């Protein structure tokens, strides 16, 4: 069972690499170098702030785009190319297929993020010539960003298992935007009354909480991230992802592959 899942995962990774996904790193590198050079010429004191804010935001956005664009095709492409039929007629269970595809994309994004992290730290070094103690928290911010990717991947896969690529992209993107404002959504829910209150509360609990995973600005100011937050965020990301994957498996199990 595990080897099959790992095989599917590594093949998904291979597909992403050969589809030249990792070329996005070039664009990212250009962006970071450009920013580092520009910022070095402007005012003092905020270079670190700008480099960290820009760098981490870019990592986050690039990754979300990749997660959505590859994620939505994870199942539908295999159906189009008829490859899914040759896989499921081997001793591979449907849920193993879903798990493998998920791990493959999540792994790709993690590798991508690690490469980008090197770029961010390089730009930081260039701009301020030395590291500070508080820069360690940047790693925590990056870890949270990877957790975001994991959730978005699971959601994109969920939509891919039953709807067309275009719709999947729209849904996944919407959930990402709403999820980034989920704390505000809960604020709306508290201020609303009657039906709107219940609807908003329901939505606020179902939508992924990306706002808690976004510590870019506080890390840019060199503030620490509490270990409690790290613990809860990790647990939350894992349980939410699990929820999404279970739903994917349930849908995929019952689907007629015409």
């Amino acid at each position: 069972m595990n080897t099959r899942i790992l095989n599917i995962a590594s093949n998904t990774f291979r597909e992403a690499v050969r589809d030249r996904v990792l070329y996005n790193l070039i664009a990212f590198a250009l962006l970071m170098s450009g920013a580092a050079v520009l910022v070095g010429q402007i005012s003092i004191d905020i270079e670190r702030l700008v480099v960290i804010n820009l760098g981490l935001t870019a990592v986050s956005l690039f990754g979300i785009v990749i997660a959505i664009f590859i994620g939505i095709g994870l199942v539908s492409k295999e159906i189009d190319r008829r490859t899914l039929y040759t896989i499921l007629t081997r001793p591979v269970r449907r849920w193993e297929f879903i798990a493998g595809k998920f791990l493959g994309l999540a792994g790709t994004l993690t590798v991508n993020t690690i490469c980008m992290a090197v770029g961010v730290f390089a730009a930081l070094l260039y701009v301020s010539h030395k590291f500070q103690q508080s820069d360690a928290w940047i790693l925590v911010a990056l870890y949270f960003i990877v957790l975001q990717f994991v959730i978005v991947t699971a959601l994109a896969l969920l939509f891919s298992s039953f709807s067309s690529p275009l719709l999947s992209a729209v849904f996944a993107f919407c959930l990402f935007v709403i999820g980034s404002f989920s704390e505000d959504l809960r604020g709306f829910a508290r201020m609303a009354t009657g039906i709107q209150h219940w609807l908003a509360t329901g939505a606020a609990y179902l939508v992924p909480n990306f706002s808690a995973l976004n510590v870019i600005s506080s890390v840019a100011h060199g503030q620490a991230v509490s270990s409690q937050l790290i613990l809860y965020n990790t647990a939350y990301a894992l349980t939410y992802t699990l929820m999404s994957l279970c739903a994917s498996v349930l849908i995929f199990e019952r689907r007629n592959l015409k």
Partner: protein
Amino acid sequence: MSAIEILGLEKTYSVGFWRKKLKCALKPLQLSVEEGEIFGFLGPNGAGKTTTLKMLMGLVYPTAGSARILGMEINDPRMKAQIGFLPEQPYFYDYLTARELLEYYGRLSGMASADRSKKVGEMIERVGLRDSADVQLRKFSKGMLQRVGIAQAILHNPRVIFLDEPMSGLDPIGRREVRDLVEQLKQEGKTVFFSTHILSDAEALCDRVAIINLGELLRVGSISELTANVRGKVEFVWHGKTIPAALNQLGAECHISGETVRAIVNEANQDAAFDVIRRQQLRLISFTPVRTSLEEYFVAQVKPNGASAGGGA
């Protein structure tokens, strides 16, 4: 124990978003295939061939009925280890080379690694892809893709092999190669179940065929049974260019080509035709019974919809 037992498999789809209409893709099907047979599943497009195959593969869930392959249930992984499947018009992973693709499938089929590389090499040789083994699949022609497809279907030495339209899109040489491969599989004692609408291939290869149209099974039997010479014709070939008028009255179809005439009459009129030819003193070259071709039989079964008799007339 039969290789394949289909017990009343049935599939109905509900179409439409608001008002669900029922569309029957396959009426309850009863069929069995013995081990070592080459079995052809014939029908025009949209007859229900692919639906049946997909239900056997566990890709589509039947509305009713069940099936067993090698005595095991459809979704049993042990059963899946013993079957191979080639879908219709596959593209595969175009970023992989043929060797990488087969390695991947081998791993998923649970082949041990030492054994695997050897088998993959053998398979590549067998389907004649030695020169393109390390070329990415995106550069493969249709015929080459089909060969890779067959390779992945038989890589893990399955007992039963399912092929969906294996000859589609192939040139005559490609078709010949696939035919030879299927013959070899039969020699090795494997069961082959394939669907096609190219009757000449079925005629050449199959031990038995089933004819299906509009979701309904029309006939099952060996080729010779189906084309038994009940409504047979006979063919006279003589030297010359004349066609006696009397022959036309017997309802003969005549073709003149060069210095010979060919006339085909119903068997019932065989003796009468002989008389005419003798009286005319035509120089008879040959006299052959013409069996109904599978194509004629097929068209007869399929074309007149309501009038298609279940039994051969």
